[in-house]
């Protein structure tokens, strides 16, 4: 009840106060005017009653008697009265006026009136009287205050009683709303309708058949529908997540199969085709599922997480793989057209600055062209990814009709098309111009009835710092593979077995934690370990093995994972490319190695000498390139040659390096104190610091 009363008051206090004040003001003003009127009437009545006595005293000139009579005439609400006598001959009256009362002047707050003082038909003079409104107001307030208090209490009671019904209704509605809110917060959407029904039943009768009740019912229906939709959405998302998970998980065995394709050459051709097609089909399914997931979740296959028309550094193999999957699906009604994507060791780690959408379109167009060129829907299309010098090479080869030479020379011109029904001739032109914009090229080789080869050349981009370009090991390196998928273990086993090094296979984080670490190790750790909350990155961080770990993951497109890798200074190998990552095996340390160092700094030379001696390496030192060139014929082309970037007489180390490369030296390394960015133009040249690399 207190709550209801409090609520009534809180809703209505302004109106109540305003109406109370209005009433008090009105009553006060009314009372004041009433009192003034009554006082005036009293005065005039008293004046008439005493007129004869006053006349007698006035004519006798008796000032004091007239004064006494004036006191009788006045009353408590008259401030003062002033008698102005008429003048006549033989008058004994000595004053111009006689005042009785309070002489205090209060401008604007005093009413002044004048009436003739008449006695028995003769005017003796005028009687002025003054009424002070402030005095009357105070007097009336002192009379009325008890009434005002009573009225205040009465109005409060009236207010409360008249609003109890309304407040009860509001409170019942609030209760209902609170209940619904609780149900929504706890997710019990199915209970909402029932709750509303119960609340409506509990409401006052007069509310039940009102539009408000209808509204509430409709709201509950909407809420129900919404909750169903939410459930469906959740299910859909779960399915979507599951599909993505399946797609990811499938990639590991798929990578193993891909890797194993190299070893099935002894099988008959048709068997090899079946196996290859099956593998391709599995890959397509996985890619398709993943694509749908990306579409739903807006995950972007973009290493810079910004799918715009701007050029971005992209891993070309992944893009082409995706396009090929789409093309296979697109042309699944032509099962005799084989569309293959050939990945080799040379395909690994090829990045380029491209517009992703445009590049896909180019590949897609080229494959489309090849399909159209193949007669009778039977043939082969191969997409080969490789690199040459500073370029990424993508070849699209088909064994279709081929293009006549006279047409071939003009292909790529705008509007020119060949053997394409409805072709606009814009596809090749667009591809060419786009590639040229990227500083790339498009070449076409074709022979009639034999086939066509489109060669795309685009400049290589610098490998992102998180990407593992190669696995460097030596004979003492112990490989520890941490993955929950046996097929991956098989891939790595297969990759490293020829080096005769120890490979340890671990399947869960606990195994890794219990593993006793030794000095020379390389961890190949999967990101996602099924059944465990910790990721591979968490383990690496926890065990503090980031300097000897490589993350192997099919989530290589995830910006979050890439960023974490960067922070931990860990390299990442896309799981699907596990079979292609170059392994650089360094010869046994015990074997004497020769290393050439060209540096004019005595200190550096001395430092390297000491370090090399410790490692049992033979260091051949040259202070300048001239001396080196004298002995150049004696030096093996496989010998690592370290060159200072700034030599005597202004010689640049990178110039010497270029020269040596042309001469056939394989391992040329620039040792410098400068940042490697400075030499980004020479992508093939390895940059190290001044410290000995041993």
């Amino acid at each position, binding site marked *: 009840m207190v709550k209801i009363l409090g609520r009534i008051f809180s809703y209505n206090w302004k109106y109540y106060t305003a109406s109370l004040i209005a009433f008090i003001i009105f009553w006060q003003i009314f009372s004041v005017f009433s009192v003034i009127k009554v006082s005036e009437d009293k005065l005039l009545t008293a004046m008439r009653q005493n007129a004869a006595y006053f006349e007698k005293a006035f004519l006798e000139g008796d000032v004091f*008697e007239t*004064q006494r009579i004036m006191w009788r005439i006045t009353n408590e609400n008259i401030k003062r009265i002033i008698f102005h006598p008429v003048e006549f001959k033989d008058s004994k009256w*000595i*004053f111009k006026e*006689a005042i009785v*009362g*309070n*002489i*205090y002047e209060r401008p604007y707050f005093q009413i002044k009136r004048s009436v003739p003082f008449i006695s028995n038909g003769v005017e003796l003079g005028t009687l002025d009287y003054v009424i002070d409104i*402030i005095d009357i107001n105070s007097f009336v307030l002192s009379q009325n205050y008890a009434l005002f208090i009573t009225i205040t209490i009465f109005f409060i009671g009236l207010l409360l009683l008249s609003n109890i019904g309304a407040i009860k209704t509001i409170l019942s509605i609030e209760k209902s709303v609170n209940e619904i809110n609780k149900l929504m917060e706890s997710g019990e959407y199915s209970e909402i309708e029932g709750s509303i029904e119960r609340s409506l039943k509990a409401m006052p009768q007069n509310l039940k058949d009102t539009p408000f009740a209808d509204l509430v019912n409709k709201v509950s229906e909407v809420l129900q529908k919404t909750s169903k939709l939410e459930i469906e959405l959740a299910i859909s998302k779960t399915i979507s997540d599951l599909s993505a998970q399946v797609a990811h998980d499938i990639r590991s065995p798929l990578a193993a199969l891909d890797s194993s394709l190299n070893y099935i050459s002894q099988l008959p051709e048709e068997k090899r085709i079946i196996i290859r097609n099956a593998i391709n089909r599995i890959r397509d399914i996985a890619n398709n599922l993943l694509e749908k997931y990306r579409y739903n979740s807006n995950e972007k296959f973009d290493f810079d997480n910004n799918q715009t028309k701007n050029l971005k550094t992209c891993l070309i193999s992944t893009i082409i793989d995706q396009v090929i999957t789409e093309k296979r699906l697109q042309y699944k009604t032509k099962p005799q057209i084989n569309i293959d994507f050939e990945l080799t060791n040379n395909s690994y780690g090829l990045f380029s600055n491209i517009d992703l959408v445009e590049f896909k379109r180019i590949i897609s167009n080229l494959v489309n062209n090849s399909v159209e060129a193949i007669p009778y829907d039977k043939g082969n299309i191969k997409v080969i990814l490789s690199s040459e010098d500073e370029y990424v090479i993508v070849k699209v080869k088909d064994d279709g009709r081929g293009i006549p030479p006279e047409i071939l020379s003009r292909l790529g011109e705008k509007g020119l098309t060949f053997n394409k029904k409805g072709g606009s001739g814009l596809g090749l032109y667009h591809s060419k111009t786009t590639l040229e914009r990227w500083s790339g090229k498009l070449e076409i080789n074709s022979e009639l009835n034999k086939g066509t080869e489109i060669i795309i050349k685009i400049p290589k981009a610098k490998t992102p710092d998180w990407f593992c370009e190669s696995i460097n090991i030596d004979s003492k390196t112990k490989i520890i593979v941490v993955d929950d998928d046996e097929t991956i273990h098989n891939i790595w086993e297969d990759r490293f077995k020829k080096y005769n090094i120890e490979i340890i296979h671990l399947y869960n984080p606990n195994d890794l934690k219990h593993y006793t670490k030794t000095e020379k190790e390389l961890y190949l750790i999967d990101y996602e370990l099924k059944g465990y909350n910790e990721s591979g990155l968490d383990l690496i961080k926890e065990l503090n093995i980031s300097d000897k770990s490589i993350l192997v993951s099919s989530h290589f497109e995830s910006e979050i994972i890439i960023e974490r890798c960067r922070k931990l200074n860990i390299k990442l190998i896309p799981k699907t490319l596990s079979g292609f990552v170059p392994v650089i095996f360094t010869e046994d340390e015990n074997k004497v190695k020769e290393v050439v160092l060209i540096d004019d700094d005595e200190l550096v030379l001395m430092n390297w000498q000491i370090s090399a001696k410790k490692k049992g390496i033979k260091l051949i030192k040259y202070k300048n390139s001239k001396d080196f060139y004298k002995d150049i014929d004696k030096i093996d082309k496989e010998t690592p040659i370290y060159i200072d970037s700034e030599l005597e007489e202004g010689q640049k180390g990178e110039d010497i390096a270029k020269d040596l490369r042309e001469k056939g030296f394989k391992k040329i390394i620039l040792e410098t104190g400068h940042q490697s960015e400075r030499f980004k133009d020479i992508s093939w040249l390895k940059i190290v610091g001044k410290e000995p690399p041993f």
Partner: protein
Amino acid sequence: MDFFFKIKINLVFLLFVFSLTSCAKNKDDNYEILSRWLAPEIKTKLAHVNLVYHVLKQTHEPLFRRDDGENFTSKVLKKWSRSIDYKEYNFCPNTTLIFNDKARFDKSFFLNYIIETTKKFDKDFKVTEENDCFKIKFSKQQKNYLDFLTWYENAPTLQRTENVEDGLGEFYVDKIENDKMILKRKKNIHNAFSKITIYKINSDKNIPTKNIEDFNFFNPEDIPEEIRKKYTKVNILDLKSVVLIINHPDNKIRQCLYNCIDTDELLHSFYYNKKFWFIPIASILPIGISGAQKGRPLQTCKTNKRKFRNVEVVFGNWFSEINQDAMLKFSENFYNKTGIRIKIKKITVEELISRKKPKSYNLTIIVLDATRNDPLAFFEVFGDFQKSEYNFRIQEIEKIYNSLSCVTNEKEKSLLYDKMIKIIKDKHLVLPLCQTIKTMYYPPWIKNITVGRGFLQYPEVAEFRW
């Protein structure tokens, strides 16, 4: 609600509240009066002296008041009643009242006071105590008893020091110094005066105006112009008659002086350059006192220059600072008219009011006044030789005057007053000159100044609020 509408509502409300109470200005709580003279002592027996009466109105409270001239009220009695035949009076004193910190208005004091005071009225009475009240029983009707108890001379009083008496009024005399008298309020009240200071000021020059509330002991023309402009003015009938005392043993000379002196010329010469509003009167009683006559005295001037050739009369000029030349002129004119030389002699006010006899002058102008509506006070200078202005006794008047205290009947009293007036007139003892209308000036910010109460406009400062 719109912002400006809210402001308006609040302003109206504030105006309403303001109009209820009407904020008080912050004023100095010392009521300051300027006077040319200070009373050396404050006692009820000196109530006939104007300034003393003014102070007594602040410090004393008579048993009864008759402010409207008709109804009796009391601030001293809790309750009172009388018998319809005016023989019995019952008074219940308010014993919470105090004279000062040490003396209360208790029952024993009241008993003693009522006995002593009633004795002055009528010795034939009895006083009995019943509960907390006292019954006074007279053997005969005493209609004037309550009126008698309204006189300040009969107010309850207690001697505190040799010069000061305490009463039941709101103030008490704190100190009397050479140049000022200070009264303090017994209990301070908000927005009311807590102190009254009466300053004595001799010179007309440099009359201070700042912080002075009351200039009404000055002549109106002496009040500074800025005060006359700023203050609220009220005209009251000054209950004073200005008369020329003719103190000469020879009635014939007195007759000549009475009939031949031009009253207007005398007034204008004596009050040279003074502007005041006066009303000619035909008797010594001023208008407002029963028996007074408006008009001029009947004069028939018959001169006999040879007869009065060597007669010289002395005019005691106590207003001599500025009127000496005018008076000499007046004297010359009178000599030319009648042959009587009027020697103008400078006298001091002290000599004028002193009771030393014989007086060194034959003629002088004096002001007869009273502090209440009682003609008796005006006959004191004739009936009481000790207080009179004459070097000879007027036995007929003395006899009547002395008998008046025993007369209770008003009509009888009135007849006796008329008789005395006739004797005075027949013997040419006094030439009535005029009565003055006084303009009183009051500060405009005092809210409680009520006029028309009683006939003597000495305000009760205790009632003033601002």
